[in-house]
């Protein structure tokens, strides 16, 4: 009895949780007159996607977002790997202070330093570029922390053995540490991609033309019209912008959940 009740509760909550997405699918695939009228015989159409695609330069937004996410992740992987290796395996004066200074970013995230970072981008003359959106996030305290934890678990003997054979510091890092940290890289990569694909406030601040704007900023066009919103088109645009992440999530559900788990537990 109690078990049945629990199952019912769990399912009820799950249905509530998927309701917004379910509605988006309904509205996006049916003509506008059915967006608030739920009849099973409503005809299915793809017109809303076509209208949404034409209402804003989505192709450009997609390119910008993919560029942005790739640029940030590539920079993060390189910078965080090097820094984490230094913290995990080197003794140098000021190491502990430096590490504490890195961790400051976990609390004081670039998301809240928008005013001064905007000033910096303006002084560098790179406002309205993908680089400006990405720069504040490239050195990630979270990434350094995560990779340092992983590197510390690598047996020191492997490191010593490689060095005895004459490998340089970077060769050791590349041949010994990086291969052993692949699961951490995947976990970090998924978290980073979904964070920056979805980021909105900073991109809307530093960009002002279509040249650099990512999808999230482009999507805002639809809700900012004052004369009546066409819900079918909004939903189509919403699904379109989230589709790559959503499809990736549905295909690699287990990896996604485990990545978020691995990245969160330190």
């Amino acid at each position, binding site marked *: 009895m109690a078990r049945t009740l*629990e199952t019912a*509760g*769990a*399912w009820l*909550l*799950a249905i509530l*949780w998927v309701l*917004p*997405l379910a*509605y*988006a699918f309904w509205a996006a695939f049916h003509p506008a007159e059915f967006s*608030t009228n739920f009849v099973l015989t409503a005809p299915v159409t793809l017109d809303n996607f076509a209208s949404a695609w034409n209402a804003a330069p989505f192709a450009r937004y997609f390119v910008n977002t993919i560029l942005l996410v790739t640029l940030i992740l590539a920079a993060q992987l*390189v*910078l*965080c790997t*090097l*820094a984490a290796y230094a913290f995990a395996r*080197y*003794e*140098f004066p000021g190491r502990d202070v*430096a590490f504490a200074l*890195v961790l400051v*970013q976990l609390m*004081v*995230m*670039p*998301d*809240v*330093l928008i*005013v*001064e*970072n905007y000033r*910096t981008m303006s002084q560098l003359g790179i406002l309205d570029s993908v680089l400006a959106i990405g*720069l*504040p996030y*490239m*050195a990630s*305290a979270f990434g350094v922390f995560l990779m340092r934890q992983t590197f510390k678990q690598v047996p020191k003997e492997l490191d010593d053995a490689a060095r005895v054979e004459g490998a340089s*510091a970077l060769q050791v890092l590349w041949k010994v540490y990086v291969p052993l940290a692949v699961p951490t890289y995947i976990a970090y990569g998924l978290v980073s991609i979904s964070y920056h*694909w*979805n980021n*909105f*406030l900073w991109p*809307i*601040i530093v960009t002002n033309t279509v040249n650099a704007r990512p999808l*999230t900023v482009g*999507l*805002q066009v639809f*809700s900012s019209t004052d004369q009546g*919103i066409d819900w079918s088109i*909004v939903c189509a*645009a919403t699904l379109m912008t989230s589709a790559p*992440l959503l499809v990736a999530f*549905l295909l690699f*559900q287990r990896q*996604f*959940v485990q990545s*978020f*788990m691995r990245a*969160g537990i330190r």
Partner: protein
Amino acid sequence: MNRTAAQVHGWLLLLPAAVLLAAFTHYPAFATLWHSFFTTAKPTRPAAFVGLDNYRAMFDDPVFWQSLANNFWFALGTIPASIGLALLMAVWVNGKLHGRAFLRMAYFTPTVLPMIAVANIWLFFYTPQYGLLEQITALFGLPNHNWLGSQSTALACLTVVAIWKEAGFFMIFYLAALQAVPPNLYEAARIEGASRWTMFRRITFPLLMPTTLFVLVNAVINSFRLVDHIVVMTRGGPDNATSLLLYYIYEVGFKFWDSAYAAALTMALLLILGTAAVIQFGVLERRIHYR
């Protein structure tokens, strides 16, 4: 390898990340403090030192206090609810219920969707007259209500969206912690004839305490960082009823272009986050003692 060479190598490896961190985290934090003592530079007039004037203006600014109060209620609304739901979800998904895989996917999906995108959908739910919520309340014969347009309900509506977005994310951490609880503890309790509720209260919940503290700190940070949905759904309105601190900073800095006052406001936010940081370090200390 000799010691000096190792020290130099260590610093060289750290250097690229350190430069970027200093440029976009440490420098702006200090620059915020510095600029908060000046007026905003205008094309006709450079920035002038004004001491604590911006802070005085802040203390006299009703919108600042309202944003702070709103943020307090938003935090109080989202944090306990999202953590409670996350724990419930994790216990359910970890149990032997039917369709666990679907449940887990359903709970977690909001985490991977862009806030800005889902805010659009929620906007429709709350739309007056023909929105989904209105259609449901109409079935019960309730009068029309403009959910996002009235001061009494707008903030609560945004709080619900934040809970919906976050609960599944926090569930993940509880799920991982639950899977690490040794099963023999439950077996022992079962032999003693303990009920499921007793087992949860006496075994599961205490063992999850470090996770709860970790999730709590994250929830606090997020309640001061999450403003994307405000831009889409209410823009701080009606009459500042949904303006949160970071959203107000965004408005002052990039709508009114008063960067000096925005700097003073940012200092208030940094003070709050700094306090959270001090608490987290205390928490981390304690977590180490658990092991």
